[in-house]
């Protein structure tokens, strides 16, 4: 698998937010932020998901640390070009301070997937996405 982060995704390191952000350490994680400042670090487990095999996503909520719970978070993956998502519903559990694991994810087709992270409460709901090419 080749994972390509789309242009437009800012690396937290080096931005003003990074300074204020108490990001829990996740080794080999990639960071994501939206223009309203929702920021997180995430990684695949295993690092290279294979088509048709289950994987998990571990992630740390950064700027909203303390405000998130597994119930307020959502992780999903969709194939925008095919208008469908995964065939499985991931379940999120806390694995450490502000750190979560979404279990039960699968890319069942090759192609362009979009990974979605959402925090729905407290309002306003915030969301970041990143595109990933799976082959």
């Amino acid at each position, binding site marked *: 698998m080749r994972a390509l982060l789309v242009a437009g995704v800012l690396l937290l390191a080096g931005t003003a937010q990074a300074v204020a952000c108490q990001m829990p350490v996740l080794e080999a994680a990639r960071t994501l932020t939206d223009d309203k400042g929702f920021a997180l670090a995430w990684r695949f487990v295993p690092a290279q998901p294979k*088509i*048709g095999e*289950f994987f998990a996503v571990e992630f740390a909520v950064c700027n909203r640390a303390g405000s998130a719970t597994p119930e307020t978070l959502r992780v999903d993956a969709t*194939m925008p*070009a*095919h*208008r*469908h*998502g995964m*065939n*499985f*519903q*991931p*379940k999120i559990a806390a694995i450490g301070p502000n750190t979560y694991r979404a*279990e*039960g994810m699968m890319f*069942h*087709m*090759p*192609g362009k997937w979009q990974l979605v992270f959402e925090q729905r409460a407290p309002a306003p709901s915030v969301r970041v996405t990143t595109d990933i090419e799976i*082959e």
Partner: protein
Amino acid sequence: MKRRLLALVFLAPISAALAQQPTFTPAEIRKIVGHGPWPPPATLDAGNRVSGKPDAIALGEILFFSTKLSGNGQLACATCHVPELGWSDGKKTPNGLSAVDRNTPGLLNIRLNRWFGWDGGSDSLMGSVIRPWLDTREMGVSPVHVAKALREDAALACRYRKIFGPLESDDAVVMANAAKAIAAFQETLATSRTPFDDFRDALAVGRADPSYPEAAKRGLKIFVGKGDCQLCHFGPAFTNGEFHDTGISQFIAPGKIDNGRFGGIKFLRESQFNRLGRFNDDATGANAVATRHVETTHRNWGEFKVPTLRNLEATVPYMHNGSLASLHDVVKHYSEVSPDRVHSDGEALIRPLRLSAQESDDLVAFLRTLSVAADNRPFQKRHDSRTCE
């Protein structure tokens, strides 16, 4: 000089032919190589403690061919799953105790599946044995019937005891164990290497395989290219193991609809024989991850399992309802399918390919290289139902 001219004259037609030979881009080669290696590594089913055990495989073989485990005493699994037909039956849809509305799938390589049945109503090979037993249209037996048949047949009871210990008083347990033995037998059903596999292995190391037909190469190029077949018919078994809507009719009869995967998930959830239940031998529960996370969505309505494309020569007719009688008909379907046929929130992937006659023939030629006749020889039974070896 003269000789050189002569050589040129002879070479001209050859080089014209060479020009038509399909060449594969690095991206295409990666996709093609992804359809192997074959055979895939042998693995045991963690949910079935007798998976791979010779005694269980023997009992499973006997039970697969036995008519004792059917409501009318006349039906065996092998009535519908005929070895010479890739363990399918050659019919559009079969008759068990009464008419069944789906086509009988072949069983070769069945162990590689994540879901069983066109709707994935079972999450294990054990579950897919129990399903036709309990289905009143197929074999129509109860746990009581299955357990009684085993208890009352001295040879079968003896074989059972050697594998599982004394026959339990709980009939559901006896039935689940018998199903695990049949599952162990079915795990041994596999296809051999095909001309495609030789071509694929050669391509993987940059070698040519002159024996692989040119038409098949052209068809393969469509398969991984503009046909987008590979998106769903993915990997060594040519299936991603999941469910899609390809625009095949959902109607069973006027006003009667097969809701496909939607009903399959509901059936799976309600079954006490799914992997979340007490008959799963994997104490860690790790093998139940798919069952734990599967959810119905509206899109599942009208989705059916992506079938393997290996050994199709023996398993006519095709599709969940057996509505397509030949590989040419299948290719015609993909060539002409109207996007309107696909459920409204279905995926934007099925569209008419509008293949030329030549391209259609090439695609069929490719599909044919995924079968070898030897896989459909009559099955030599290895065990005697009257003895307890």
